């Protein structure tokens, strides 16, 4: 069995971000981290491989080539993923749709039984790739997973949805997207970091994938910083709070 997982880098969401001079992207000295949801996807693949054995795990990262290669090695291969695939692309102009089409092409070559990726990328916050990919491949999907089990050719997934928890059983091959409560991602062991250097990492160009039209469908025309909220007042005590909520805010 084969599982394809995702390894995307994102600019650290806790860092202060500056908008580029043309107003359509971020710039400056940005720190990057592994997209949190990819860490959950990677952890899930490793646990399934440990539990069931005989599962090959492959990580796909799409982005600026040197940096993305580093994230695939450190974030995925060092943790125990067997090998990596890098597709070099300009991160600014790859929308979720183009990413999904790249995944679909890679999936056609690799024929994985399960594709396990993040529910969203915490830079663009689109929450689309898994669903787009499932439709491109004509596969069933189970998104926002907080529990994943492999059973008799099916993957049984508990999903975090509005109102509670839904459970679906989908027949493989399938796409599953990971939510944060799926697991606690492990740290890469020191030995893993050494081993990762020798693991195979294929590099592909967009042209190799014969995407036809490798253009995004959605384009950012302007970025801005939302107006911040002004800090209000510190109240003295509960009486003061009640008085102000009543007289000033008029919400009581």
């Amino acid at each position, binding site marked *: 069995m084969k599982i394809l997982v995702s390894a995307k880098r994102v600019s650290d969401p806790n860092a202060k*971000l500056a908008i580029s001079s043309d107003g359509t992207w971020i710039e400056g000295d940005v720190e990057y981290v592994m997209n949190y949801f990819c860490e959950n996807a990677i952890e899930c693949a490793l646990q399934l491989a440990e539990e069931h054995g005989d599962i090959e795990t492959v990580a796909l990262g799409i982005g600026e080539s040197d940096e993305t290669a580093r994230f695939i090695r450190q974030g995925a291969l060092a943790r125990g993923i067997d090998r990596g695939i890098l597709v070099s692309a300009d991160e600014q102009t790859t929308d979720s749709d183009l990413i999904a089409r790249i995944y679909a092409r890679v999936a056609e070559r690799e024929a994985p039984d399960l594709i396990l990726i993040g529910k969203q990328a915490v830079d663009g916050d689109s929450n689309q790739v898994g669903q787009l990919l*499932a439709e491109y491949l004509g596969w069933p999907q189970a998104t926002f997973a907080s529990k994943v089990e492999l059973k008799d050719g099916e993957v*049984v997934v508990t999903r975090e*949805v509005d109102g509670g928890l839904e459970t679906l059983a989908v027949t493989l091959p399938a796409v599953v997207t990971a939510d944060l409560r799926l697991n606690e991602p492990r740290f890469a062991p020191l030995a893993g970091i050494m081993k990762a250097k020798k693991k195979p990492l294929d590099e592909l160009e967009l042209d190799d994938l014969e995407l036809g039209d490798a253009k995004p469908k959605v384009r950012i025309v302007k970025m801005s910083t939302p107006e911040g909220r002004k800090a209000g007042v510190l109240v003295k005590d509960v009486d003061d709070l009640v008085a102000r909520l009543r007289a000033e805010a008029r919400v009581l």
Partner: protein
Amino acid sequence: MTKILVIAEHEKGAPKKLTLNTLEFARQVVAHAGGSYDLAVLGSGVGGVAQALTGYGADAVYVADHPDLAHVLAGPYAKVIADLAQRAGADLVCMSASSAGKDVLPRVAVRLQAGMASDVVGVVQTAQGLAYRRPMWAGNLTGDVVVETPVQVVSVRASAFDALAATGGASPLVEVAADPQAASARVRYVGFEGVVSSRPDLAEASVVVAGGRGLKDRFNQITEPLADLLGGAIGASRAAVDDGYAPNDYQVGQTGKVVAPQLYFAIAISGAVQHLAGMKNSKVIVAINKNADEPIFKVADYGLVADAFVAVPELVGKIKALRA
């Protein structure tokens, strides 16, 4: 001229309020670009829902009633919605960015060869045409995006739009023969474990009482009396959910629900960016935290530095006394 198809969401035989928020988004697009909108109701036994939506100015209310549509499953729903969009000649398909909308809409986009903008909070006119405004980087940045395909798909952040008021009139009901079977294969619905609550829906409540990790196993004991007194819903930080003090459905934030009530209480919540992403557009924010240095105080209108275990019961007592 735009033709918009709005996908209705419903529960227990009635439309959800977020359908009306999504209709307001559609109304705003029409105000910018001209055109009109249709509604679509999918499900099993949904005639009443469709009937309830005939007074909102849609050219038509399409009804796709089929036993296989009883649960919102992405594959079959996407097929039926895309078929309907083609039949209606829609060039914009929208639904709220609920967990169902997020699950289903991207598949609709692929079927219609459309680009999709997620979690849209506004419609703006730009030199490059009509753009959709959407929060990115946990709401730290805002992007105006243009969708460059003839057909577009949008998920709408309901809390950013008022509910459209009934316009009167009577949209015709149009029954359509839905064909979800082909796309239903290979997915089996196993079950649902719902959160039972008599309180208002978190996404729709005008008061939200949210608790954080600091409340520990007294989460309910502290939040419930205040929520019940104010007729509010209960929310939680991710940490409170992770630690098992609150169900996942309560989570407010970047990866939970986005709310914008009249009054939001953040009790023992530190105010991480990911939490703020889900509540910073509330009208009035009250923070109760024992540590005065926490970032939550930077967004709160009223901050009280106090032990929540003491302050919240006292607050409940004082509001009750006031009302007596």
